[in-house]
């Protein structure tokens, strides 16, 4: 399991480097997806398959899809790569890189110097164990997170609907039984329509 851990850790680090240095936005996103999957593999190797599966489902499977979705709609071409190249000058990244290198050195020295007792054991944490922990000692945190997510959901729903209430849409919706249907559609179609038209303009 230690080999699996180190292999996937190396992949995660390399892929993340690829995200930072990549010039093409979509290619950088692909590296980010690989990096997230590698982190999931690290979880698997550490004996936490539940966390690993959730990492893939939530991050690689849902959040990154939205990222890719948005970046694809922007139709970034050679100009974006040029801009990226201009930003990635030696003078820009050298300073922060040296500073983070020093921090990494400190971390490595600490890890090597002290025995933290970190050993990967063949113990697997089941979904049941995670659930018992979440709804036992960490119940308050779970509830708070749920509240936060609900608030975000309500806010997003409000932001998405606000325009659907203006008069031009209200007039166009003649059959009353389709109001609920049409309103959601107007909101979703509008965002998609805007993106495609801007894409056509830039071509």
């Amino acid at each position, binding site marked *: 399991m230690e080999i699996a851990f180190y292999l996937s850790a190396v992949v995660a680090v390399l892929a993340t480097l690829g995200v930072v240095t990549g010039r093409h936005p*979509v*290619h950088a996103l*692909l590296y980010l*997806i690989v990096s997230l*999957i590698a982190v*999931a593999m690290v979880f698997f190797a550490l004996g936490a*398959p*539940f966390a*690993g*599966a*959730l990492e*893939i*489902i939530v991050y*690689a*499977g*849902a959040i990154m*899809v*939205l990222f*890719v*979705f948005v970046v*694809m*709609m922007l139709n970034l071409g050679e100009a974006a790569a040029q801009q990226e190249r201009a930003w990635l000058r030696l003078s820009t990244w050298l300073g922060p890189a040296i500073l983070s290198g020093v921090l990494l050195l400190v971390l490595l020295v600490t890890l090597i110097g002290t025995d933290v007792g970190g050993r990967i054991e063949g113990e*697997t944490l*089941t*979904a*049941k164990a995670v659930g018992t922990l979440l709804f036992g000692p960490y119940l308050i945190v779970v509830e708070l997170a749920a509240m936060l997510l609900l608030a975000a959901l309500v806010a997003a729903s409000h932001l998405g609907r606000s325009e659907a209430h203006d008069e031009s849409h209200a007039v166009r919706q003649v059959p009353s039984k389709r109001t*609920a*249907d049409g309103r*959601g*559609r107007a909101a*979703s*179609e509008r965002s*998609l329509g805007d993106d*495609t038209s801007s*894409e*056509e303009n830039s071509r």
Partner: protein
Amino acid sequence: MSWWTPQVEAIAFALFQALVILIAAVGAGALLTMVERRLLGLWQDRHGPNRVGPFGVLQILADMLKILFKEDWIPPFADRTFFVLAPAIAMASLLLSFMIIPITPSWGVADLHIGLLFFFAMAGINVYAVLFGGWSSGNKYALLGAMRASAQTLSYEVFMGLSLMGVVAMAGSFNMREIVAAQETIWFIVPQFFGFCTFLVAGIAVTHRHPFDQPEAEQELADGYHVEYSGMKWGMFFIGEYVGIVLVSALIVTLFLGGWHGPWLPPIVWFLLKTAIFVGFFVLLRAALPRPRYDAVMSFGWKICLPLTLINLLVTGALILIFSPAGG
């Protein structure tokens, strides 16, 4: 034969099983290309492909020859890496999901704790196939198809997960074998009927099958995300769709219809029979239903299926708490 220890034998048998299941899955996908057209012909009162070989069974061979020998063309305006990667993801993520399906008490590739979650993870990764394929083609129709597909799949994956949580709660495990074992007395289709309905809908939507095939609607998108593909790369999208049908059918059988359980016949026959019935049902749906409008599909998912699964999960949880011997 000193090296032929029981351990080696177990490994060899596991490898053999995995290979057989993999080949069977791909074979079933390939076979379905012909079976679907014959069945569509039957149900729509017309001839299917019936010229090559007896009853047209050699049509698969003809199609395979055509796909393999067609020029494998990558458009000059396409993004090569992504263009090649997309069909591979489409096929591989679905084939990997077969890993968790227990076929008979002794057959099945992996017995994971997190069984079902592995399927969700693979379904999540499968979205990239369409997304990358559509984007890298550098074609507006393809991009529109990919957009629709990813929006549809994301929406339907939300309640696909929720629809199965009732089953997980009743079985008390994500493990597929334990879920099958929990259906010894009663199939989950009875207590989890709404979960079954919503999972069926979500399964069709996630595999982009008719009537949820807006991503590739020929009439408006000229085939959507794979319009620029040809040859075997297109073939992988094509076979991948059928592999997806087989996978969703096998999952429905495992989760809601008791897997291999059944009287008289051996387990493998029951499993294959039930799966075949669902594959047939998928084809029948395609033969019978018209394609709804795209926004109707989206609002159906969010406004009907999602609340339904939430209520189903809530009621299931409440009933389990009331009737559980521990009493909470």
